[in-house]
């Protein structure tokens, strides 16, 4: 009887460790990697990734191009991303800390030369019950001046990717990217 009990407890232990390994450890591992790299550890700053960092951080974005990265941290308030991309194909993706894609935008959807995207935390369940969050706060809204995105988590990762057919244009693209920004939104 004792052996059966031990085996059942061991099986539960194995299942628990498996769940932790799948749902928690990868997120911690990624955070540790991000902190290790100078280009990705600074919060709320748009960083043009060096090509080596880009290849290892974003392995699916291959070939000549410019990748910019912002480690969004909403603990100190809303964050605003201002983009001034070229008139070619580009894409912006925002990932949660667990790697799920939360938001995406490309040049066809944006249809404008300058885009401002504001990120803020969605009200907590308690906040919603107490009425501190309005419907506008809960539902993502799009207006002519800016995109407003609400995230349930305080941390997210934004990646902007501009591929170039001509590798010679990459340096120019990196210079252009410096006019874009990611920063805490001024009150």
């Amino acid at each position: 009887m004792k052996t059966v009990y031990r085996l059942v407890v061991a099986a539960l232990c194995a299942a628990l460790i498996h769940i932790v390994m799948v749902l928690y450890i990868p997120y911690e591992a990624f955070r540790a990697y991000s902190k290790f790299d100078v280009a990705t550890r600074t919060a709320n700053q748009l960083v043009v990734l060096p090509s080596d960092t880009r290849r290892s951080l974003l392995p699916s974005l291959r070939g000549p191009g410019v990748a910019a990265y912002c480690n969004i941290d909403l603990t100190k308030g809303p964050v605003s991303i201002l983009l001034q991309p070229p008139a070619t194909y580009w894409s912006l993706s925002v990932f949660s800390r667990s790697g799920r894609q939360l938001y995406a935008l490309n040049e066809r959807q944006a249809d404008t030369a300058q885009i401002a995207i504001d990120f803020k935390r969605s009200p907590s369940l308690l906040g919603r019950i107490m009425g501190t969050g309005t419907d506008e706060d809960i539902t993502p809204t799009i207006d002519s001046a800016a995109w407003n995105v609400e995230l349930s988590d305080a941390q997210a990762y934004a990646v902007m990717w501009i591929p170039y057919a001509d590798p010679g244009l990459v340096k120019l693209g990196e210079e252009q990217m410096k006019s874009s920004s990611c920063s805490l939104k001024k009150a």
Partner: protein
Amino acid sequence: LTSDADAMPLQQRAAAWLLQGAGLALRAIIGIGIFGGAIAAGIGSALYGFTHFGVAPVTNSAGWQSRSLDAQDSALPYSLAHFLMDGRLPPPASVKDFTRSADDAGVALDARCVVEIRGTIPQARWWTVSATDSEGLALRDSHTLTSGGAILEPGGELVLRISSTPQPGNWIRPPANRYRIALTLHDQLNTRTELTLPKVQQSGC
């Protein structure tokens, strides 16, 4: 009055203690074994899942496989973990990444051979074909051909050769003796039509 234990000769008492101690040690070893095994099983099964779960062959395109990042897929946590564990972000939802490590005959790709990729690339806003290392990393931009830089045949077909020596037409160099091919579609168009990926043949080894 003396107890039975006290009455036992010293040698018998020592033997009893030894037996009791051995029993306890055996139980501890079994306990540690069971729980050690449980920990190993939990970690091992998760690591196995990171590598294998969510990866599926592409229908009608022998040799090609892709990793599902569909929100409805039960393997999604494993697919995401596969990237995050190595400090990588998964491909954006608009990007479809297909890989293979062998030619159409099932022979592993070898840098000593000339690999020819021939076929029509599915319509997309942007695409790339890369020779990557075993982990899917294109070590240099020169290991990648892009839709912007490719020369297509009159019928729209792509012919790309991967070889250590220069080749006519579209050519990229392999990154290592053993490598993988990655085809990436950015914002695929005509998603309703069935996907057919190019054929891969190896020669001149």
